[in-house]
């Protein structure tokens, strides 16, 4: 009798979970999509604290939309007003993708509890990686506006490798704001996109990653141009820089960590290859091992 009751309880619980889990994941995905839209369409000004590894810093961020064009400034407060030069080269956030199918294969989206950040209530969303090739991403998003109030990247050892949190925030919805993000302005500084690479190929990539862009970048200090192949799993990305033989060389093989960002440099077919990304160092190494020069 006890066994039957136990079995029925488990079946009911499994049924409830099976029904509720996809809807929670959908809700989490929808809120993430809303957030990616909101950071482009809202006017916001705020102060945030940013932690990278053991280093803390404090920023004033301002974002406006004027005639469909985004303007953003990020000022590091600890260095005084002169640091406003940092916004001389504006870093548009217009490239962020919506939730991609391949993303759902490598992350599980969870809806968490609620927090109170910068005097606003926000909903926790967790993108939990299904393998060790990427970090756990934790967001706290204001449901009404979709604004991101708190964000952190957590490694496999449950250490927070990077986090940011608004301490003050003012949000205004611009008059011309619509449900869709403003049209992407052609960026004159955008380097030339190359056709899909045939000379450099990846024998395999970590699950979920795929090549999204192949750019030709000007060489450093008058050196020959370098290639930047961008890989993405839908939520995070890796740049693979390939410098031709004769370019200024670095050490044979190095790995550097700075908060969530890792850099791994090595040599492939006499080319200096440097990988940069907000993924574990192991992921960069795995990608570099599968890079092959096919010419």
């Amino acid at each position, binding site marked *: 009798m006890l066994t039957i009751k136990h079995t029925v309880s488990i079946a009911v619980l499994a049924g409830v979970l099976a029904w509720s889990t996809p809807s929670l994941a959908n809700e989490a995905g929808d809120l993430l999509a809303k957030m990616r839209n909101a950071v482009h369409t809202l006017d916001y000004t705020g102060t945030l604290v940013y932690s990278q590894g053991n280093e803390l810093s404090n920023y004033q961020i301002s974002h406006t939309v004027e005639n469909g064009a985004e303007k953003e400034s990020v000022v*590091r407060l600890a260095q005084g007003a002169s640091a406003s030069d940092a916004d001389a080269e504006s*870093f548009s956030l217009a490239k962020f993708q919506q939730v991609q199918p391949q993303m759902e294969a490598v992350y*599980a989206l969870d809806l968490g509890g609620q927090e109170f950040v910068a005097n606003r209530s926000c909903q926790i969303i967790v993108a939990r990686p299904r393998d060790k090739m990427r970090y756990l991403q934790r967001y706290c998003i204001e449901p009404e506006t979709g604004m991101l109030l708190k964000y952190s990247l957590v490694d496999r050892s449950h250490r927070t490798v990077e986090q940011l949190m608004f301490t003050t925030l003012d949000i205004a919805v611009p008059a011309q704001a619509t449900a869709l993000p403003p049209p992407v302005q052609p960026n004159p500084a955008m380097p030339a996109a190359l056709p899909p690479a045939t000379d450099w190929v990846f024998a395999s990539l970590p699950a979920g990653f795929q090549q999204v862009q192949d*750019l030709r970048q000007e060489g450093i200090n008058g050196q020959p141009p370098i290639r930047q192949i961008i890989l993405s799993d839908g939520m995070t*990305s890796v740049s693979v820089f390939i410098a031709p033989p004769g370019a200024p060389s670095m050490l044979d093989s*190095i790995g550097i960590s700075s908060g969530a960002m890792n850099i791994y*440099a090595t040599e492939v077919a006499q080319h200096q290859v440097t990988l940069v*990304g907000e993924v574990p*160092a192991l992921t960069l190494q795995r990608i570099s091992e599968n890079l092959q020069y096919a010419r």
Partner: protein
Amino acid sequence: MNTSKEEFLSAFIDDESGEFERRRLLDELKKDDALGQTLSRYAFIGETMRASKGQPMGQGVSLLSRIQEELADEPAYEQDNVVPMPARANATVTTSRVQAYRWFGMGMAATVAAVAVGGLLFFNQPTTPDASMAAALPASAPVSVAATTPTMVADADTRIQQVGRVDPQTRDILKQYVEKHVKYASTTVIAPSIRAASYAND
């Protein structure tokens, strides 16, 4: 980490600890990574609380900077001070019969203990192993090389060296790569701007 360490840490952050406690905590910080993480978290919380009270940010950073400077000033290990490990060959030559018996006894004890633990585990297996295994698995198992070769992954991870200091030319190249990555590839939401500003100010 026990409670007293956290209390010391809290007092340390608030600049209320004495010289002795401060020195002791610095020694602990050098050995205990978890304590360092806790220090970072406490400082982050302190910063946030100060900001929410309308005080200017950055007051706690000076204390953190001081801690880092003190840690940096700690004497580094000199090559002369490093005591060489005894060579394995010498150890085998000097091994006496008494030591051999001692190793044999320890081996036997370890074997008996292993059999006892194994037996306990065998007899205490859950009655529904399928259910517990299903719960331990992720909702869907993607194809992953890493998942199939965990040992190799762990080994590979440790092979990557952390380089704290690089030469100016390498640093310059890496900095430009990071800027290009942040500008054209970084897909996390607000962080790219912050990262870019951070590197621009380095």
